[in-house]
């Protein structure tokens, strides 16, 4: 009971904190528009979206990952660090002081540069690894455009015409950091890691871009705000993912939203798997492969290593944010969005509406981060050639087929309903594939190893894995 209560309190705290920061972001953006020049809200958004939200979530994620993996593995997790202040002297505070100790450790460790390393490139590596992932979030809309203090405020840093292409371009820059780190360390293990990383990241960029084309076709845009879409308020038609494929009539809207995951499940799986490979986290962590080659950052210490580590966590947050915007309806509610937007209170106080939907966005992001953590701690590592097989022989043809099927369906039925039906069918097929036990096939080939004493259950715990990665893993043979 106490445990459930703790969890509930923690969840409420997190939601409250997200709402609070969202509200602050909208208020500051409004004030900036009011007192500075027009468009100053974009500058405040840089601070709030990229520094406050992404960085703080990434920092907390270092702890959350350790705590969550501990939960999955029958451990307690970090609880040793204490703050020597009256009242909290003997409390572990859920391990939060560990963030401080980690940072202190990183910053105060010897900053070692190997003698034979190329000093310039060696120092450039972590910077090039960190900066691109950090810049990725600039095009992701984290909330609706609302009117605050009489000014229009967008909760996005930049809305360039090329939209998602910016994401793909900047994401592919990150490979330089890893490749340089591996090469300039003048270490054979690091070199192996760097080569593995660059080949993996470059191959998966193809699948990454291809998996999104179906989505561009469906929404006729490459801009994230357009893909997220606007609600049908004040007579205008809903656009993007704010639309409903089917909906009930009446003031409270309830129906099947035109979210990317429903229209493009294959695209989603391809995108999620490919971007997972880009983040270089398990099961795609062969460049790190700590039990084989230790990794491309083996020679790095102190904060340089910390940059690689934190960029991995920033990637997790950014990936979750981008996926939310592309496939999970961005800041839109699954139902009742139009009803909420038409409430007089919401129309009167734009910042309140923005705060609510901003919180919705960040909660979806947190959910996707959680999915990534579950995948990270459930699967072993691929082999190097298996990753390439998955990328080139499975994700790429799958993405190509998806482009043609989606294109045909969009052309046939511009209301996207046909696409939605096919998408739901695809989800159903994937669910069935994931849940079915291939007991007979597996055992026919390898049954000999079980001796005469059969009858033990083999199909355990397999269904609990998250669908996306599982489906991609299941098709990787």
């Amino acid at each position, binding site marked *: 009971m106490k445990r459930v209560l703790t969890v509930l309190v923690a969840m409420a705290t997190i939601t409250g904190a997200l709402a609070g920061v969202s509200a602050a972001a909208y208020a500051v953006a409004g004030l900036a528009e009011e007192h500075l020049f027009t468009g100053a809200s974009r500058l405040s958004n840089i601070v709030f979206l990229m520094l406050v939200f992404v960085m703080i979530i990434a920092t907390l994620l270092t702890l959350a990952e350790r705590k969550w993996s501990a939960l999955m593995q029958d451990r307690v997790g970090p609880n040793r660090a204490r703050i020597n202040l009256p009242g909290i002297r003997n409390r572990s505070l859920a391990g939060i002081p560990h963030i401080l100790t980690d940072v202190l450790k990183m910053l105060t460790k010897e900053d070692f540069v190997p003698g034979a390393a190329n000093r310039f490139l060696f120092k450039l590596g972590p910077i090039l690894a960190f900066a691109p992932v950090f810049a990725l979030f600039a095009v992701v809309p984290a909330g609706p455009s609302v009117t605050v203090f009489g000014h229009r405020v967008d909760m996005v840093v930049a809305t360039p015409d090329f939209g998602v292409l910016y994401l793909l371009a900047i994401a592919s820059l990150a490979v330089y950091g890893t490749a340089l780190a591996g090469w300039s360390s003048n270490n054979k293990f690091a070199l192996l890691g760097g080569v593995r990383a660059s080949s993996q990241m470059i191959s998966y960029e193809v699948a990454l871009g291809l998996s999104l084309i179906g989505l561009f076709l469906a929404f006729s845009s490459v801009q994230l705000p357009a893909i997220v879409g606007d609600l049908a308020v004040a007579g205008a038609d809903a656009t993007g993912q704010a639309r409903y494929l089917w909906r009930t009539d009446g003031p409270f809207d309830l129906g099947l939203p035109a979210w990317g995951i429903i229209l493009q499940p294959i695209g989603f799986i391809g995108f999620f798997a490919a971007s997972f490979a880009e983040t270089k986290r398990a099961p795609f962590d062969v460049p790190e492969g700590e039990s084989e080659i230790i990794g491309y950052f083996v020679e790095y210490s102190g904060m340089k290593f910390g940059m690689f580590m934190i960029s991995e966590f920033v990637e997790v947050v950014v990936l979750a944010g981008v996926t939310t915007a592309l496939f999970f309806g961005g800041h839109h509610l699954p139902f009742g969005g139009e009803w909420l937007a038409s409430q007089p209170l919401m129309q009167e106080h734009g910042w309140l509406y923005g705060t609510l939907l901003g919180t919705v966005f960040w909660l979806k992001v947190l959910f996707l981060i959680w999915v990534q953590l579950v995948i990270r701690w459930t699967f072993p590592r691929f*082999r190097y050639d298996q990753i390439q097989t998955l990328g080139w022989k499975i994700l790429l043809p799958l993405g190509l087929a998806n482009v043609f099927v989606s294109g045909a369906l969009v052309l046939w039925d511009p209301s996207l309903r046909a696409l939605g039906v096919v998408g739901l069918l695809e989800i159903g097929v994937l669910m069935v594939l994931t849940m079915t036990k291939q007991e007979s096939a597996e055992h026919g080939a390898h049954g000999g190893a079980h001796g005469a004493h059969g009858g033990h259950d083999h199909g355990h715990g397999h269904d609990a894995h998250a669908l996306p990665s599982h489906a991609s893993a299941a098709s990787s043979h």
Partner: protein
Amino acid sequence: MADSHTMPEAKGHNPDTDGSLPPEGELESHLQAKHMVINMGPSHPATHGTVRLKVELDGETIVKIDPEIGFLHRGFQKSCENVTWTQCLPYTDRLNYLSAMMNNFGFLNAVEKLIGLEIPERAQYIRVIGSELHRLTDHLTCVGATGLEMGGFAPFLYGMEARELIQDRVTELTGARLTTSFGRVGGINRDLPDGWADKVRKTLTRTEELLVEMDGLLTRNRIFVDRTKGTGIISADDAIDYGWTGPALRACGVAHDLRKAHPYWVYERFDFDVPVGEHGDNYDRYLVRMEEMRQSIRIIRQALDTIPTGPIIVDDWRIALPPKPEVYGTIEGVMAHFKLVMEGIQVPPGEVYDATEASNGELGWYLVSDGRGRPYKVHVRAPGFPVLAAVPHIIEGKMLADLIPTFDTINMIGGEVEQ
């Protein structure tokens, strides 16, 4: 003379003077590729114990691999020659430090065979229980580490929980977690503690639950299967040629288990199966180990249910220490105690080879006695040694990433290989 000096330079290619353009032939030739030699170990996360693997790589493919042992050499054989037979026991702990009791009992069994001694039935039961407990810990570590080194941390920690529970029971029985030094020539030095059997049954139940968890995380995990199935293959003939024994050999399809082939102690009284693989790959080795753990649990359950009462060590003061009241109360007791401690057990001259089925295979002991009370020669046939010797045969031409699961599932233990 001057001509002969200048002629070759004038005709040949001089990179310093001919500009940056390479000669025509070099443009056509293939890109120069060099093999990379890397050292895995002696300190490497994937080496159990301390072993150095010199790996020559062509890209990601292993061209040549050269395992180099000796980093854990402690002079086991020579040390044993300088102490009494009983004092050898702590040295045997450190051979395979994951299953010390098996080494203890295997050594004692060989000494008893040399003496021609039959140990009490209860002692035989306790030896079976202890051996199977340590077979469980050894396999748990091996399977867990296989998962861990392929990137799955959870199965390792589930395995560790089960291992720690068993380790607690072992501590209650022997007084030590790893270096048990349990048993004496002629039997066992202390009986099962009160209520220990029930605790063990509970531990086994929990272990079974954790095995189901590990099984669920690994056995049908697509990535795990892809990484292990069809990698690290060795044929049954090759395995026998290299001298493989134990689970690694059984995974090749050879149903050879000393517990069945030459039953020792009371193994023939228990109902258990010997799991046999088919392909001799990493996946089969993993499955065999998983199944052997279930069989070990079966054996322990049966042994705990049927263990008879009675003495735990032979009543012979030339071999076993006399009871303490006799030592403090009678002159015969004092003398026997003194002679045993100072001179050791007077093992008759002769030589013997005896083997037991340890967790990784046939743990053989070749003992020579000259009747002095100390071993003249102790040689261990460590199951890990032939297994390690076959690594180059298995892995050359395969990928670097295959080395890790292969090295895990063959479960070579540094301590026993290098003695």
